[in-house]
């Protein structure tokens, strides 16, 4: 249900943009108003969500320790997987955010007769996830060509590296290919592994289809249905300089692409995609394991009702005395 709903939702989005531009001539709506609204929603939404998380305190320091702790001086600490200092935490977080270290640990069980359980290393999810996120990021950076004048110095550099193989005209970007393959893999993985399909919701399929739609429309625009690139840049520069213009004859595929991107920006703050910001706040990863060395303060720590020694002795005094235990009151 979630799968079909999400698929058709994205199809409808495509048709909306197509009809809106092709039939109703709403270029200004799809090229200016919606992108602005989407961008504002994206920024405000993310700030709102992060602020909401931030308002809840971190009462306890509960890192998941994944290596030897700091202990006696002759025992070698694993300073990355079990950090005891801020620097260690920064390195741990960098590994987590940039290289998906936790996911790299992934294993797969295999139960054979006996019973005999075996654990194989499985890196596919890690590899596809990493490929997806990094190519997405590089593609975003490449898009800065459209939003800067003069073009930022590193953009052509990325482009030339990305087109390393010098294939086709226009030059084929490796990231485009890897990106589409990774998203496709993540989709098939979700559908084909029974357990993963079982836990999947519309909220999992929708962003996959949406991002796939963005990728496909982008590729179509670059390699197949050529659009007026000069016109596109005029439009995008108009957006960033708050001087929006809608040049004639850009080509409808561009508006479809832009509308899907806008949808993603709007959808982002309300969805699981917020894991992008959330990973930085995760208390099991971003805290040092140094509780015995440094006190962590819980802002809502409150006194609790306890059973004091005095009560205890009052209840058991005779028995304590007969067992030869010292007591406070005879």
């Amino acid at each position, binding site marked *: 249900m979630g799968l079909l709903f999400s698929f058709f939702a994205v199809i409808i989005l495509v048709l909306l943009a197509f009809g809106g531009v092709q039939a109703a001539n709403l270029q200004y709506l799809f090229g200016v108003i919606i992108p602005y609204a989407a961008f504002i929603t994206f920024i405000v939404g993310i700030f709102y969500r992060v602020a909401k998380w931030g308002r809840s305190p971190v009462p306890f320091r509960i890192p*998941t*320790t994944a290596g030897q702790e700091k202990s006696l001086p002759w025992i070698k600490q694993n300073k990355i997987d079990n950090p005891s200092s801020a620097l260690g935490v920064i390195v741990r977080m960098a590994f987590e955010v940039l290289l998906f270290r936790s996911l790299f640990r992934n294993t797969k069980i295999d139960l054979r007769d006996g019973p005999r359980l075996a654990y194989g290393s499985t890196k596919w999810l890690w590899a596809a996830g990493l490929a997806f996120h990094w190519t997405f990021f590089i593609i975003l950076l490449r898009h800065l060509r459209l939003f800067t004048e003069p073009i930022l110095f590193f953009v052509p550099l990325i482009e030339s590296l990305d087109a390393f193989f010098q294939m086709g005209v226009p030059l084929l970007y490796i990231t485009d290919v890897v990106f589409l393959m990774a998203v496709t893999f993540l989709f098939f993985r979700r559908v084909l592994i029974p*357990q993963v399909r079982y836990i999947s919701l519309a909220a999992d399929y929708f962003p996959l289809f949406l991002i796939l739609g963005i990728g496909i429309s982008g590729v179509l625009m670059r390699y197949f249905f050529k659009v007026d690139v000069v016109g596109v840049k005029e439009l995008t520069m108009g957006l960033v300089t708050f001087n929006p213009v809608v040049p004639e004859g850009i080509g409808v595929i561009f508006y479809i692409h832009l509308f899907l991107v806008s949808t993603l920006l709007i959808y982002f703050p309300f969805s699981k995609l917020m894991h992008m910001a959330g990973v930085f706040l995760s208390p099991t990863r971003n805290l040092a394991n140094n*509780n015995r060395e440094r006190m962590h303060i819980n802002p809502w720590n409150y006194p*609790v009702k*306890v059973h004091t020694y005095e009560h205890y002795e009052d209840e058991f005094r005779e028995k304590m005395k007969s067992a030869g235990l010292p007591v406070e009151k005879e």
Partner: protein
Amino acid sequence: MAIPKPEELSKINYKPPQTGWIDTPVEIKPGMFCNASKPKTLQAVDFPNPRTWSVKDEDWKLPENWQEIILEGIRERLSKYRTFRLFMDICVRCGACADKCHFFIGGGDPKNMPVLRAELLRSIYRKYFTGSGKIFGRLAGARELNIGVLKELWYYAYQCTECRRCSLFCPYGIDTAEITIIARELLNLLGLNIDWIASPVAFCYKTGNHLGIQPHAYIDMFNGFIDDIKKVTGIKVEPSFNRKGAEILLVVPSGDIFADPGTFTTMGELVLFHELGLDYTWSTYASEGGNFGFFTSNEMAKRLHYKIYAEAKRLKVKWILGGECGHMWRVWNQYHNTWFGPIDFLEEPVSPITGTKFENTRSNKIVHICEFTADLIKNNKLKLDPSRNDHLKVTFHDSCNTARGMGFFEEPRYIIKNVCNNFYEMPVNTIREQTFCCGSGSGLNASENMEERLRGGLPRANAVRYVQEKHGVNMLACICAIDRAALVTSVDYWAPGVRVTGVHEMVANALIMRGEQERTTDLRGEPLPGKEGGENV
């Protein structure tokens, strides 16, 4: 209920059912749950809704406004725990956690995949606390909180041992233990506890320990230990209790004082500290390092552990030494200082034997006994004869809590390698930070849920069997009292022939004491290698 044979129980179907999880109502299966809490145990600690109820009954005798109580409970905890709010929001359902849970591996129930266990609560969160859930309902994975959903939450909150293995693999560090802890807090607002947790909590509050042992009975147990140690070593150890002015307060899990094989660990500690002439005291008031309150609510955990620092203060000791226990150390390491700090009435721990400063404990002033002993061995303060443990082929089980809530790996291994000659590691994906739970942690080591425990125990016990077959391992060492209780059962079932020991039991067996008689048996009264057929057999 008869437990099927291992060959039967290990036929596990990992295929999820045809119907989606929201449409698959919970089926509460005998052998997979613990009995309901009794009214008097809840009353003892002023918990809500004390009454007689049974899991099997249709009517769980909840208060009229139970939905309101749960939703208000969720609202409150969302504002108090960033973990909770974040973990409700950011899961992408990648499924990396799915086959990391021992209950899923041993049972195949899809709702034991950590992600789905969390979704049980997340679906309620979405329905009542998010816009998309309110608007899109089921499509957004949201669902109404009805009695079936509540029972499901209860059933699976007590099929998680809070071991955090899943959180190790989660790319966002989502910690199911945190979710289970909060789910159990919510359930406790309605009086939905289990007897195996509620009774120890009530006992612990009154008597200082989970088993409800009163001070005189506590002393009796020690008198038994003293006699047994004298028989084995010829030396009469003289522990002190509730003694003011001692340098160190020793707190261990009470399981080690009242149940084999944990008792041998306590005896080991008595032997070691006697030999060192350590100025330490036991306490009948702080007679429990474990904390079943932690399996109930944060507040109850704090209420139970108050006694430890209070007793240290009353007895005017310098610092605290903690025994071999798993969740006790998670609580001590990650919660204690925050609840009770700053601990300015104690001194920064220094070993009186070696002069080593335990700098990593300078704020909360509690040292792990394995840190203490490893330091002794490193500084050549102990005369050890590891050949006395030559009849043992030992492997080591990392307890989930000391592994992933502390990172306590090398200290116990260093000790073991110095007190016995035959040590073998289990496969790498089953030890250290990737260790498996014994299957009975977080208060689930009852008898009525034996199938659940054996299923959850499969991954650990199976790794034990692997080294048993490969290296002839016959002793499983651990540093946790629940392990010592639970692994015996699990290993008997899945890897018969392997026994369970604490680390300090082996230390004492290898320790050459001044003036000891020639030892012919170990602390269990069993013959040492080469002494078979001796008089003490």
